């Protein structure tokens, strides 16, 4: 594969097995339209040029027959990186979590325990019940993203204890989310996982880690990702979030578990054919994009510091809680809700002489309060955060409202 600088206006030329590929130049209109600083999520990340070239060149085969070498390579790499036997590429984190839970809860009468603010509970449409036919009970998520261990202990219903009890479902699986989205991109530490593993030792209960953003956790802790999941029986990692691949996640676990999950995946409609075209950028995501996440974390702290300086304008943020690439902040304003704020922010404005549109999302947190969530990703640069802070200050300062009076 030959790569060279392209003609004027083109960014890359590849002369490979499938012919010549020019990666697209920036369209003319982009120069005259406002810059979008999109912090709605890290799912908005677009594939890098290297990923596009990889898609162009990918060796493929029919993966339902097990003949796609690229996805096989991705699955093997992911498993190795996470210290597990085997891997399975899936269309999304939701599919990975659902296939995992269904594969663990294979027999009738089993249940999963998960955090009350976790993605599997809040944002997967209750697939557990609707599709998986097992019970999903919740345990309180603490502000640090962990499950309250005392409450968990009291809720465990191991098969050994309750098999003869006609009132109770049998706890088969605990789901831990790392990093924890709704608690603010919080990092679950290995010490916690040690305590959890000890709690359930010998009870026939397993652990699944929803590691959609596991690499953010690993980066924040400076630890290999395998260390964070060594007690987990299965793990899902997302390639399409901060790692920036176009689509997909990988589920990893024992070989037996994965063969069962492969069957479940097929029944959900996740048996894709020449999926190496998605796996090729996925490999780059796993190997390269996992190494740049600290930049997103630094941008998150930079945003956080800027927001904290606006506390007199009603911004409520605990900077200590910003551990990775997610920032939640409250707005203590009598004149503006979080939804109003986000809508105003999304209107075109000017910052540092540039036309910009800044996007975030409102999010209802555990207390019922609606906060604003910003998620840093590789499209949001230092300059982008600067512009966002300028726009935020402009909106909050110009509304004429003040910080809501404290209850005395």
């Amino acid at each position: 594969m030959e790569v060279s600088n392209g003609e004027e206006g083109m960014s890359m030329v590849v002369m490979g097995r499938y012919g010549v590929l020019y990666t697209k130049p920036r369209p003319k209109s982009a120069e005259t339209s406002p810059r979008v600083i999109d912090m709605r999520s890290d799912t908005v990340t677009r594939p890098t040029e290297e990923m596009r070239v990889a898609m162009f060149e990918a060796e493929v085969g029919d993966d339902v027959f097990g003949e796609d070498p690229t996805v096989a390579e991705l699955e093997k790499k992911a498993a190795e990186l996470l210290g597990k036997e085997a891997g399975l590429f899936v269309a999304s984190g939701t599919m990975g979590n659902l296939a995992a839970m269904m594969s663990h809860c294979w027999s009738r009468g089993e249940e999963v325990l998960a955090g009350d603010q976790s993605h599997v509970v809040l944002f997967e449409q209750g697939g557990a019940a609707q599709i998986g036919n097992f019970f999903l009970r919740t345990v309180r998520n603490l502000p640090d993203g962990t499950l309250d261990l005392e409450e968990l202990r009291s809720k465990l219903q191991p098969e050994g204890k309750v098999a003869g009890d006609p009132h109770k479902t049998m706890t088969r699986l605990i789901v831990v989310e790392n990093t924890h989205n709704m608690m603010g991109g919080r990092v679950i530490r290995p010490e916690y996982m040690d305590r959890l593993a000890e709690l359930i030792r010998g009870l026939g209960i397993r652990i699944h880690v929803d590691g959609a953003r596991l690499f953010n956790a690993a980066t924040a802790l400076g630890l290999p990702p395998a260390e964070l999941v060594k007690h987990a029986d299965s793990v899902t990692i997302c390639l399409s979030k901060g790692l920036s691949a176009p689509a997909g996640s990988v589920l990893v676990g024992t070989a037996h578990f994965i063969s069962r999950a492969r069957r479940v995946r097929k029944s959900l409609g996740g048996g894709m054919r020449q999926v190496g075209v998605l796996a090729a950028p996925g490999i780059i995501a796993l190997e390269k994009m996992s190494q740049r996440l600290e930049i997103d974390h630094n941008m998150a702290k930079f945003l956080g510091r800027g927001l904290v300086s606006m506390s007199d304008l009603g911004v409520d943020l605990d900077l200590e809680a910003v551990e990775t690439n997610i920032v939640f902040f409250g707005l203590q304003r009598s004149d503006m809700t979080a939804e109003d704020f986000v809508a105003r922010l999304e209107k075109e404005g000017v910052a540092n002489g540039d036309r910009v549109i800044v996007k975030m999302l409102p999010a209802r947190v555990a207390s019922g309060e609606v906060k604003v969530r910003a998620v840093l990703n590789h499209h949001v640069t230092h300059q982008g955060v600067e512009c966002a802070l300028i726009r935020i200050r402009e909106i909050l300062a110009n509304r004429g409202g003040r910080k809501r009076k404290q209850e005395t």
Partner: protein
Amino acid sequence: MRRAMAEAEVGDDVFGEDPSINALQERAAELLGQEAGLLTASGTMSNLIAALTWCSRGDEMIMGQEAHMFWNESAGSSALAGAQIRLVPNDDNGRIAAGDVAAAIRDASNIHVPASTLVCLENTHNRCSGGVMTPQDTREVVDVAHAAGAAVHLDGARIFNAAVALEVPVAELTKDVDDVSFCLSKALSCPVGSVLCGSEEFITRARKWRKMVGGGMRQAGVLAAAGLVALDSMVERLADDHANARRLAAGLADVDGLTVDPDSIHTNIVIFEVDREAVGDAREVIAALREDGVLVSHSREQSLRMVTHRHISSADVDEAVARVNGTVRRLAAAG
């Protein structure tokens, strides 16, 4: 196709912001005479989403006894969508008769009885030798289903093969049903995917169930871009696959120990019987053929299946026939 994928304009499709996916969905819907479309990961997913959308838990869905949805989708309609499957006969062309469908419709005012909320068609029909339903056949079943208040889902994995074989615009086969899915990843040759098409209301609901089963992909415009290429340039050539299938069948018919019905070659699928006594057990024959470099699949009992596509030229067909001849002779002699 590779170039289109690598250059595709993309966005987050869960936010509805992927322009390539939006373009494909619109184009597909328009081609099929439906209002809207939805990219899914596979034909199985499209079929499952149709079941989830049309059927409530405990409903009954009517389909042919040879249907792919019944045989090869891990019982998803029942296990995951909670619907019972009711089978009616398929003829040699894979058609189900309007009269049989009418007779299978339930009276749900009776508490013992599930409601018939969905009828599923398959065109072309996989297990019935790639057989074809005409627009007239389709309309007859649709009329009966609608009269009974049931919707009609068309599993059109290979619908373009049907359209090309019948020499009609594909919309003639798809505009009367309530929803239709077709595969991008089969003879249209895209790497992945299926497109589900129906009314705006249907697609809005289908999108929700697609997310629930895990089909909410992000920048999947990379896949949609291939789909757009396929709809432009991979449909007409299906006629070549059909011609190659006929050539293949003619060649296989001359091999002692094999039986193939030349009238059963409707599109790109060739099903032939292997004489157990004279040649051997079907699975042994498949293994022997594999050793000789010919890859075929098992249909049922002593029936084997071969499918033509863009990687199989007419020269390949002749070579395959020669090798099959050799393999079968070898097995017959050894037997």
